[in-house]
């Protein structure tokens, strides 16, 4: 009975999905249809907050985990996932990134620097400071990395705007939602500081690391002064001149009042020791980011009770480095020992979490975490650094970071140990929304011909004939990337290949807040495409030709593109 129901239900979902691709998708969103109740049955579960549970049941309802354990009743409305052979982890957290925040707007604003166009003449010009920028305000669903990281098991990120000494305020974001605001879990959670110089002659103050430090010292002093001066002024309006408003001071004061952590860059021992002193001098709640030489100074960090965000992008020799450029022994030791830093931090009792630090593929981030396991970190400590510890550091452990009843239903379901390279992520839950993860298909044989370039794709939906355009690039091995543009928008090819004359490519569109894969497959005869489009079981025939310059049809389609 159940399976028949599910089948019919799925069929309905697929049909709407198909319509949504090519028809009026926004209209269908409001009609609902995505299941809100799930139960994963029979999986091995790592709650992180407690010991692993074999053969467990997790119940998810309306975005939250409502029950977890061995003998749990599965509510009748739940969509049951057979978890046999699967492992469930809390959704992974990238503790410091800018995923979700696509472009940095230029820094300017009222109450800000006096002369934003020219080089700053001193701290009073507030160089490279935009602490009022907020990740929460700048989240955009158009950032393709949201899906990349979600598919890699990262349900949550701590994202901050980029650029400058005080780039802005970081927020905890969940990586799924219909609207940008759905992603925001908590904001602000941190004020990153970047020791960035103006770039030298003519670039204005500060042009040196000591200048940056002096500037930041002065900003904190100014902020304190403003708070006190304003309070004094409010009490005695007629006895003194009005303190001036300064946007930098106001934004920082407000964020610190919200208990935002000040993130201080410190990768090597010198920088880490300096950061320890800076936390005292600034008298802020601080944490270190970088931390790759913590193997030398972990006990000192522990003594200060500072948390560390460890950069997973381990130091490596520069690719194609000048062979004459011999690295120093100090550098070689650093490359060798950096991945042992997490183990040293764990041993010293320091709370730490991992961040991607410029790694672009989530799989590589997990590989890098595995390196620290190989260098002595206990696997459960590595898992904790990717989940609960991150949540604790940023003050959201009350709502996510572990698999517990009442917490946000952020889960990663795999077919094995998270840190094993061959392990595949099968599905991801973000705020209780289920995302299937499809392994990208690989071309078996070398391609025959070249599919790259612009295409016009034609097909007939139940509503009548329709066109869309595709723009492909193809690697030598047949891997296809690019975009497909229909009347309602553009989607990137998430996986695609051409193997001899067989092609397949998949795009992903958001449907009911939940993405649906649309796969085009068929044969390529060197000049045209012929095959079928499939959306979760449904299929349609389509043809593709290269648009000619004088083709009016192509022109129409192009005009229709956003």
């Amino acid at each position, binding site marked *: 009975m159940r399976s028949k129901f599910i089948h019919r239900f799925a069929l309905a979902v697929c049909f709407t999905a198909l319509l949504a691709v090519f028809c009026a998708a926004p209209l269908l969103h409001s009609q609902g249809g995505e299941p809100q109740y799930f139960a994963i049955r029979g999986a091995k579960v790592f709650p992180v907050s407690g010991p692993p549970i074999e053969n467990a049941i997790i119940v998810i309802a309306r975005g939250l985990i409502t029950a977890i354990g061995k003998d749990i009743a599965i509510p009748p409305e739940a969509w049951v996932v057979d978890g046999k052979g699967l492992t469930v982890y809390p959704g992974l957290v990238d503790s410091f990134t800018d995923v979700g925040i696509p472009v940095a707007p230029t820094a300017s604003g009222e109450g800000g620097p006096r002369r934003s166009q020219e080089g700053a003449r001193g701290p009073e010009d507030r160089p490279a400071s935009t602490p009022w920028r907020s990740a929460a305000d700048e989240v955009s669903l158009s950032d393709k990395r949201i899906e990349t990281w979600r598919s890699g098991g990262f349900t949550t990120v701590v994202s901050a705007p980029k650029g400058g000494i005080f780039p802005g305020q970081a927020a905890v974001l969940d990586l799924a939602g219909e609207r940008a605001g759905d992603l925001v879990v908590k904001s602000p959670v941190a004020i990153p500081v970047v020791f960035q110089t103006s770039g030298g002659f003519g670039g204005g103050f500060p042009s040196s690391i000591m200048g940056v430090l002096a500037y930041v010292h002065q900003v904190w002093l100014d902020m304190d002064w403003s708070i006190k001066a304003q309070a004094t002024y409010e009490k005695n309006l007629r006895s003194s001149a009005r303190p001036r408003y300064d946007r930098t001071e106001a934004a920082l004061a407000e964020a610190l009042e919200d208990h935002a952590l000040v993130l201080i860059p410190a990768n090597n021992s010198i920088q880490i020791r300096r950061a320890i002193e800076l936390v005292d001098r600034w008298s802020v709640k601080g944490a270190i980011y970088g931390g790759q030489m913590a193997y030398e100074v972990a006990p000192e960090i522990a003594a200060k009770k500072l948390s560390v965000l460890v950069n997973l992008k381990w130091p490596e020799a520069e690719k194609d480095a000048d062979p004459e450029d011999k690295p*120093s*022994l100090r550098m070689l030791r650093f490359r060798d020992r950096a991945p042992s830093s997490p183990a040293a931090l764990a041993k010293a009792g320091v709370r730490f979490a991992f961040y991607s630090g410029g790694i672009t593929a989530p799989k590589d981030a997990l590989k890098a975490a595995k390196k620290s396991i190989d260098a002595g970190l206990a696997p459960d400590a590595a898992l904790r650094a990717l989940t609960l510890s991150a949540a604790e550091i940023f003050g959201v452990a009350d709502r996510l970071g572990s698999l517990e009843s009442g917490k946000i239903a952020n889960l990663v379901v795999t077919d094995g140990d998270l840190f094993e390279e061959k392990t595949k992520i099968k599905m991801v839950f973000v705020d209780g929304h289920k995302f299937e993860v499809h392994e990208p298909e690989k071309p078996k044989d070398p391609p025959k011909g070249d599919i790259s370039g612009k295409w016009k794709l034609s097909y007939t939906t139940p509503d009548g004939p329709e066109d869309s355009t595709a723009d492909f690039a193809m690697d030598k091995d047949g891997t296809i990337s690019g975009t497909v543009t229909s009347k309602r928008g553009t989607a990137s090819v998430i996986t695609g290949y051409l193997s001899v004359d067989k092609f397949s490519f998949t795009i992903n569109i958001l449907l009911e807040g939940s993405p649906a894969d649309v796969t085009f497959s068929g044969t390529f005869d060197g000049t045209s495409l012929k095959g079928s489009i499939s959306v979760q079981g449904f299929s349609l025939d389509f043809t593709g030709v290269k648009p000619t310059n004088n083709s009016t049809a192509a022109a129409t389609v192009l005009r229709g593109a956003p």
Partner: protein
Amino acid sequence: VKSPSRFFINAKNLRFLSLLNLCFLYLPLAVAATPPDAPSVILIQNATIFTVSHGTIEHGSILIKDGKIAEVGQTINAPKDAKVIDGAGQFVIPGIIDCHSHIAAESINEGSVSVSSIVNMAEILNPEDIDIYRDLAGGVTSANILHGSANSIGGQTLVIKLRWGLPAAKLPFEGALPGIKFALGENPKRSNFSVPGQPRRYPSTRMGVEETIRGAFSEARDYKKAWEDYNKRFTAGEKSLIPPRRDLRLEPLVEVLEGKRYVHSHCYREDEILMLLRVAKEFGFKVRTFQHVLEGYKVADELAAAGVGASTFSDWWAYKVEAYDAIPYNAALMTRRGVVVSINSDDAEEATHLNQEAAKSMKFGGLSHDEALKMVTINPAMQLGIEKRVGTIDVGKDADLAIYNRDPLSAYAVVQKTMIDGRVYFDRQRDIAERSELEKEKKTLIDKFKKAAEKKSEDKKPDATVPIGQKPAEKIPEVKKPEEKKPEEKPKPPQSSGTDSSAAAVRPGGVL
């Protein structure tokens, strides 16, 4: 002939700025092994001791207890628990003090503004700078770490001890008064450093330099007064006052006015030297040292009368317009007129043979052996206000010593051991012994990475197995400290047998 480029402190400016542009999180490049613990009692026996304060003791002994000199004399019986260093045929001098150094720092100039008193060298010390170790190998034990000379008023400075292997927090010379760098003449007016297309920074004349300094001190005087007024009214019971805003740029200048911070001023010409003395008099502060002060011999009487120290070069001249009147007799002439004179390095390499630089004043100007030695020991100590702690070999002073195999004023003298607080931070024999081990470790690591890289590239083949959309891991570009361009091939130090024949391996710290 020395290339002028090395004299331009602001060539360092360029170098460091570009370095910082590349990456402000640059990684240390040297290996600083923790120095061996010092035995609490050490006896140096049978050495020639140049005390600097009270003559030379042939076949003398120095007893060190807990890092301090406990006894100096002809014969001292070794206490039971003493570690004895046989000084037969060796020469001991007080550790050399370099009054003008730019080592051990992550940045040198905050060149963006004409008054950069807000920055502090103490905050960006780099204890892993290999130049610390190389200076130690030249007998240097303390150094005055100065901001560069790009600005009329530069950053805050400090004196450090070269405690190689210890963290930055252990470097500052305890109790030494902090300083601030001033600069006069061509550098702060940016005569030689304009960038095409960039507006020239004020000031661009010596008049402007004077005005900049006067302007800054006028502000500092007002700032000081604002705080004094506030404190007075606050103590008088006015509680609803808004205090002045703290200004980290002016606070060090107030300290100068209050005599709590030394002024070390870079200068060349007599006119600018006299100018700063006038400005200092007007604002009521003292100049502690004039640095370089190559025309100091023209105004030696004025310097002596003002009680200002002069820290100069041995024999560098004519490398820029304002150095045309420099003469190698400068140090001797000033000394003869009663100025406390030191010879400084201003350069990491030069600092490794300050003993020879001092010796040149015996040829140029006929100073005595002891007078020459003083110029790199007690004189810089007096200039930096640390003469009660270091600079001579006397009972009660810090056991900061350099032991040579020959008279240190000989060109053949090579440092055997350098000690700070009774702890051996450089030992030539230890350095030589450790080289092969360090080379081995280096080779092992290089091989290991090479193997890993080969394995990785094998795993990557064929390319088709790389998951779609997954880029190969990007590498972090490592920032390399650009190798300083040496103007000329330096004579290679004598090579010990059995070690690698490359110059780098023989140089102290070359392996690292």
